[in-house]
């Protein structure tokens, strides 16, 4: 059974690249482009891990993360934040809300992101 990864990311190009990389590594990939859709898919599909962007149209990443962590059906799914927000307060906020890791996109390559994903599934 391939592991299921849900990626919630609104930038289509970045999503395309990471999806390609994940598929190449034999993951099953689910996609969402905004917060609501992301939370809905997390509940329905129960992925093994979620890659979550923070700045999203509508419900932002922090809110989605809180929802995921508050819902008993999804609270145990590890969430890795991938964002370009990089101030200490922002990182601390993400980790405090329950993310297992916080990756700044510009400082990580897709390769390194997959390495992190593998560590948590």
């Amino acid at each position, binding site marked *: 059974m391939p592991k299921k990864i849900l990626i919630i990311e609104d930038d289509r190009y970045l999503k395309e*690249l990471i999806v390609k990389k994940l598929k190449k590594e034999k993951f099953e990939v689910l996609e969402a482009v905004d917060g609501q859709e992301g939370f809905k898919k997390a509940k329905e599909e129960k992925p093994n891990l979620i890659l979550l962007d923070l700045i999203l149209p509508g419900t932002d990443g922090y809110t989605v993360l809180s929802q995921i962590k508050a819902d008993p059906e999804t609270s145990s799914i590890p969430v890795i934040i991938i964002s370009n*927000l990089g101030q200490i307060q922002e990182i601390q906020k993400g980790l405090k809300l329950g993310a297992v890791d916080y990756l700044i996109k510009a400082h990580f390559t897709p390769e390194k992101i997959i390495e992190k994903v593998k560590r948590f599934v």
Partner: protein
Amino acid sequence: MTKELKELKAELVAKTKKLKELSKTLDEQVKKRTKELEDSRRALMNILEDVQEAQKKTEEEKNKTLAVISNFTDGLLVFDKENKLSLINPQAEIFLEIKAKKVIGKSLSELGNFSNFPSLVRLLIKEDKEIFRKELTLKKNLILEISRVTIERPKKENETLVILHNITREKTVEKMKSDFVSLAAHQLRTPLSGIKWGLNMILEGDFGKITEEQKDILEKTYFTNERMITLIGELLDITRIEEGRFLYKSTKENIVEITEKVIDLLERIAQKQKIKIEFSIEEDIPEVKIDREKISFCIQNLIENAIIYNNPGGKVTILLKYDKTKNQILFSIKDTGIGILKDDQDRIFSKFFRGVLAMKKETVGSGLGLFVTKNVIEAHEGKIWFESEEGKGSTFYFTLPIT
């Protein structure tokens, strides 16, 4: 009979004459006295006028002082020698949402019972001496900077003056700036991430094999993009750190650990330049209340300078000490580098200033590092200074008080 009459008449004449003479002297005396009285009246009047004048002047002075105090844009509170409130100006009434007549004469602890006072009273009780620009969030949307000074007057018991300065606007602007930096970081980094990821995957062969020539060019493009990402990072750091005058938040931190982390971060750059970093600690260093991010920036900046403006094969010696008597931490960093010209030494902490030798060694540099560092250290009530000799190197010192 005639004779008798004649005698009587003569006597009468004589008496009349005497009487006239007497009356004349009396007149003269009365006149003289009257004049004397007039004179003293005039003198008295003069004195009275002077007194009135002086009184008027005093009154005016008092009104002027009161007007200054009343119209002052800072809130002012004066406490007498028994620490009872003896004066509160209108601005302080507004800040604390209280009427003067309700609180005048109350002691510090009694004031704690009024709704907006507790946090201020806590601060005033906790610090027993002078207070210099301590930040206090009185309520939502009202951030004050509190100072306390002693009013010393000859032959009078000392009173204390507490000044409440509104810095809400500055803090709001700071918040806006921080939000802007956040947004800018995101907006600038996102397209750069796209370039980075795309190039990286092509280079990794995710989209098929590429020729050596293509690989070479793509690698160079990749590193150019990396430089751009680093540059944005640095720019954001500087903007975020601001001018360092405001502390974001203070927490108890272990400065040894912070220094070690920064050294780890810079070890690679140092090795590249063949520079050895030595770090030693004297005595146990207690934890100190600081804004971690800002102090990390200062330490990083000082170490970076010691590496960049050093000579290949040089040394950087960092020493942390705890001064028990002054209850403060002393950080010192010595390099064996180019040093600072005598002429440049006065301006080394100025904004955008770069020393002549530094510019010769490294063409790129913002001239902000030491400026921001000084502001941060002083915002922590510490001191920063240096010793330097051209061609021999520099030693920078800073202190952090443990409060």
